């Protein structure tokens, strides 16, 4: 637990005293240089977790520690410097009149020197394949293009933690894969943490750790292989598992065909091959 970059200690949250708890006694730890996926049904408290992480909301009970600092009114500015966050709906976060200006905004706020700024804008827009659109107006882009620009804005400031709150929901599957790969590469290179809040089942397979939320509580914390073995109960709480995992579980229902829970098609085919060659 001690290497955690972000730590939730018995955090509970509700909007007011008359309202039900949105989060109830939530504890977990996001280690440095790990990819943690948070999944859960709509209303399970996932986005509230994201908002608590950078002090958009404060816990009613418990505490949140980011890089050794307890998140509070006094520390939020320090905390926010290290966290880059992209929300579901990028429309709410554009400030620049062009794509380029918009990415520049975060850099200007941090007082990045001009030469460096130009280089970073170019790199981050190229990383999300939006360099050709640098002079377009952000609000006239398509939903998926807006999300790409918003992600570029976060990559440009090179934070310690990147939080993607369903930030790839409007992208096509291929674009989604590319963006996640880009962000994950950045994570590797810079040794930062990545938190992705998502409904995309295939995205979870690449995470190091998965936190499953249900009704405001941490329902399960495990690696993807372990999560996919709980098909039935996941479906009961409004979730599902990817095609590959479902087929694997179905294959193993009557007889043990696969020795290991596969994460992707390659692993599944490999498992089938092993089984086949023993026949």
């Amino acid at each position, binding site marked *: 637990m001690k290497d955690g970059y972000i730590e939730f200690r018995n955090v509970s949250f509700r909007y007011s005293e008359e309202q039900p708890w949105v989060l109830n006694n939530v504890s977990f730890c996001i280690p440095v240089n790990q990819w943690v996926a948070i999944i859960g049904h709509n209303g399970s408290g996932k986005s509230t977790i994201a908002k608590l992480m950078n002090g958009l909301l404060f816990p009613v009970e418990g505490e949140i520690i980011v890089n050794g600092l307890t998140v509070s009114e006094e520390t939020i500015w320090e905390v926010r410097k290290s966290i880059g966050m992209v929300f579901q709906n990028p429309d709410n976060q554009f400030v620049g009149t062009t794509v380029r200006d918009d990415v520049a905004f975060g850099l200007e706020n941090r007082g990045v020197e001009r030469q460096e700024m130009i280089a970073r804008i170019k790199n981050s827009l190229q990383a999300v394949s939006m360099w050709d659109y640098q002079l377009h107006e952000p609000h006239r882009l398509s939903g998926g293009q807006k999300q790409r620009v918003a992600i570029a804005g976060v990559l440009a400031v090179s934070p310690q933690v990147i939080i993607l709150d369903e930030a790839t929901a409007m992208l096509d*599957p291929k*674009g989604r894969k590319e963006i996640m790969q880009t962000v994950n590469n950045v994570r590797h290179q810079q040794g930062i943490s990545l938190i992705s809040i998502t409904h995309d089942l295939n995205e979870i397979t690449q995470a190091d750790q998965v936190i499953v939320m249900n009704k405001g509580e941490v329902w399960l914390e495990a690696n993807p292989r372990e999560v996919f073995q709980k098909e039935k109960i996941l479906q009961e709480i*409004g979730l599902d598992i990817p095609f590959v995992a479902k087929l694997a579980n179905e294959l193993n229902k009557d007889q043990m065909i696969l020795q290991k829970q596969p994460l992707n098609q390659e692993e599944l*085919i490999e498992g*089938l091959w092993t089984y086949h060659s023993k*026949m």
Partner: protein
Amino acid sequence: MDISFKNVSYTYQPNTPFEHRALTDLSFTIPSGSFVAVVGHTGSGKSTLIQHLNGLLRPTAGEVQIGEFKLTANEKPKDMKALRKNVGVVFQYPEHQLFDETVEKDIRFGPSNFDVPDNEIDKRIPEVMDAVHLSTAMLERSPFDLSGGQMRRVAIAGVLAMDPSVVVLDEPTAGLDPKGQKQIMDMFHQLHKEKGLTTVLVTHSMEDALHYADHVIIMDHGTKYMEGNPTEVFTQKEKLQAAQLDLPEIIQFLRKIEETFHISLPYKGQTIPELAAELSLLLKGADGYE
């Protein structure tokens, strides 16, 4: 209503530095009663296309015909309102458009704007609530107290209350959890069949296109790239990849199995349990080697 696009082009902000051509020489026909999926990577022109369907945009060149309504660069239907009443559009994140104090008032807003008599709206409300699987007990509640999935259903109920004959869905399941996604898609599929609607679904999900649509239009760079029956379209791997699209996962997987084990395992709409049974049988008999 039959829908047809004839050589349609659309340019945003023409003759300005921001000029951007979103559709180029696009032609297709959607016969009344079909369920069509429009697929393409981000920025391929899908959303621009559907804004022509209820006259929010008019083509810069070419002609759009929706039933008896015709849209061209210099011509718009005399009765735009009648077009919009007939074509119900469920936009991305429709719950962001909820505004009224109660669910009922929000649902009434659309039809009453189209001069549907009050007693007729009274009759439709329980029907549309039932169609979106919400209890009428919810009618008096504020839409803002509901969960995300419920809010989306209310917004959809508002569109259905106009009794449209064409329903246009722009990524209707984005942001919903897996269970909610399946429920919403099953609901639209059921409505489509029961009411004999013409349904146009814009989606990134090849799985949904394969599962629900009877016709697929693939968009690329603002123009039609492929068109046809979903199973035929989705088996053309190389062509789809050139448009930055993937095959539906099940078809991808079947392809790999065929290549690895040198067996034939075509896609024929099998469910996962059916596929598992087929696989274990085939692998016992296959004599593949690498």
